[in-house]
């Protein structure tokens, strides 16, 4: 790694009572990289993500964001410059779509006119119809639309880093696929550094540049899909077997050429 990482975890440990949620993890995420953290529930992947913007504080080890030790940064300021997409949206039900998207710029004290323009820009970016959705409350949106608003909100203050906590987990397969692809192209277009949590290896392989595998608080392996497939760890190989089997079955079940 020639340049400094965008996010760097060095020997991070975090316990909740007797449970070691994150156990001596070191992991670097390069600028412009799309990293997926894969693991089952209780593997510590969500804890690892939240440590980056200090929603959770580490017991030991050092975390750097853009080269700075996060302990030296005000947590509120830190969170305002890192986009965060919550599981199932996390939209505020009493605020309109526009107010939800514009919340972080508003907290940063940006002028109202700038925020309004930015909201329109973002609605276009996440492919939501401006007039139909701008003033609606979240409850009037479908799950996919809600998650698009969630992505727009995360991007509102033009962050360089976006953290995503199982962002597409609750969506139907078609919406999930479309949203994943759309986000992937946003990631590239805006030059973002993205860390996404998922329990779905197929999704991780399809979207991410690199994958980190966690289990019981430990980082078992990290690398590109190709690198992971050469891993000697049984659990990592087990995780990779599912997408492989799916590919094989799909290949036998679906005609090789057709209207796909």
């Amino acid at each position, binding site marked *: 790694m020639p340049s400094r990482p965008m996010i760097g975890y060095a020997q991070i440990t975090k316990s909740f009572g007797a449970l070691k949620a994150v156990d001596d993890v070191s992991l670097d995420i390069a600028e412009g990289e799309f990293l997926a953290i894969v693991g089952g529930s209780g593997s510590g992947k969500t804890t690892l993500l939240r440590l980056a913007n200090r929603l959770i504080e580490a017991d030991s080890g050092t975390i750097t964001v853009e080269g700075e030790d996060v302990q030296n940064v005000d947590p509120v300021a830190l*969170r305002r410059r890192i986009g965060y997409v*919550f599981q*199932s949206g*996390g939209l*505020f039900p009493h605020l309109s779509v526009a107010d939800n998207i514009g919340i*972080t710029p508003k*907290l940063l004290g940006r002028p109202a006119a700038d925020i309004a323009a930015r909201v329109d820009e973002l609605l276009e970016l996440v492919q939501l119809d401006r007039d139909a959705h701008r003033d609606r409350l979240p409850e009037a949106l479908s799950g996919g639309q809600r998650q698009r608003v969630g992505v727009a909100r995360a991007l509102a203050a033009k962050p360089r880093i976006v953290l995503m906590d199982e962002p597409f987990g609750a969506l139907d397969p078609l919406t999930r696929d479309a949203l994943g692809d759309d986000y992937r192209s946003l990631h590239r277009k805006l030059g973002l550094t993205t860390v996404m949590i998922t329990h779905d290896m197929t999704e991780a392989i399809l979207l991410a540049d690199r994958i980190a595998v966690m289990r019981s608080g430990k980082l078992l392996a990290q690398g590109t899909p190709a690198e992971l497939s050469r891993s000697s760890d049984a659990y990592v190989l087990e995780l990779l077997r599912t997408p492989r089997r799916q590919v094989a079955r799909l290949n036998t079940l679906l005609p090789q050429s057709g209207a796909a």
Partner: protein
Amino acid sequence: MSLFADPRWGEALAHLPDYLGNHVRVSLAALALGLAVSLPLAILTRDRPAPRAILLALASIVQTVPGLALLALFYPLLLLVASVTLAWFGVSFSAFGFLPAVLALALYSMLPVLRNGITGLNGIDPALIEAAKGVGMTARQSLVTVELPLALPVMMAGIRTAAVWVIGTATLSTPIGQTSLGNYIFAGLQTQNWVFVLFGCFASALLALAVDQLLGLIESGLRQRSRWRTGLGTAGIAALVAATLVPTMGRSSQGYVVGAKTFAEQYVLSALLRDRLQAAGLPATARSGLGSSVIFGALKAGDVDLYIDYSGTLWANQLHRTDIKPRAELLAELKTALAKDNITLLGELGFENAYTLVIPKKRAEALHIRTIADLATHAPTLSIAGDYEFFSRPEWAALQKAYGLSFRTQRQMQPDFMYAAVASGEVDVIAGYTSDGLIAKYDLIALDDPRHAIPPYDAILLLAPKRSGDERLQAALKPLLGKIDITTMREANLRASGNDANSSPDAVAKWLWEKVGKP
């Protein structure tokens, strides 16, 4: 329709601006204070389980104290505080009326506000609080822009409950000197004026209902995020408050305040005193329905300028004397003692209103009972009823001691119902009052007290310290002294106990003046 032809409806209506205005004012102040204290407490303790539990427990305990007792407790408490602040800082304040009522009612309003506040704040999806933090809100920003708006519907429901409780309980602030819609109910109960009782009940119920519905509109507006509902409800509350407060705002000085305790004779006499002062060109208002212990303190503090008390009552309650002295001696000693507090004992009205044991005349004849001593031999098989204070008064102890009285059962009753109860045989003996007109009405007799266990109870006119040198006041009152004998007072009380238009305290006071005012 003849029900509403009764002129007492008109009389009740005439009091409405004053009573309702005061009722709204005290309820509003109490609710505002209750909210100002409870909401921050709910916010502070929402994620601190131990203080939260203590706070809710305390508020629940307050809630179990009967409203009347809670209100009554604040009066001596404030008197104490006022005397302390006077001694330490040289400032005093009135412990009478508005302040104790507001404090007690505010305390009463706290439980629903606290409980719903905490429930509302704790009921928010933790993911949303996390999201608020995640988008970069400080704790305060999260509270103001996310948590409070989301908890608001539940909080509003608590505020609604508190408002209804406060409006209902405020009727009980009459005995501590705060005018309220309770004035109708207390006066009506004491003078058997059911029109007043009904009017007071309806008025406070309607007020509570209106406020509840308007707050409900605001609540549903907040729930459905509908601006016009919230706006309409708020405008309705504002209009209601303005409409009830404006008519009474203009009045400032009320001149002399004539106090009255909570029974018919006092209502009549205070009306008589007020009329006399007004006839002499002195502006005066009557403040009726004051608790027996409240009224003396109010006179001493100058919140009440004059009222009628009874020598034996002051002897026992204020001088804390348990010995019994002959009438003249007791009066002289009382006068000296009161003078130490700068209270003027202007003189006696001419009648006595002492406690006395009363039984139906027929029963007395059948059992050959003429005195309390005769009664004592039958007492173990008989039941006795007295007013709320009788059995804890020194007279009762003195009676028991002097005659060895011991009844089968004893119970407490609303004074006006006692006479009917003894006449119908529901109780055998009652502790009545010598000046009560109902003794004649129900064909009862008052038993003699040959051992003089009950002290004399001359009706005496007391003036507040600040009125001790008021010549005009004293001149206006002098014509009443020594003029009202027991027969006249009994007749007046009997009239007041009727249930028609001629039985209102004002009407009886006029009759009484016509009777005793002639030179």
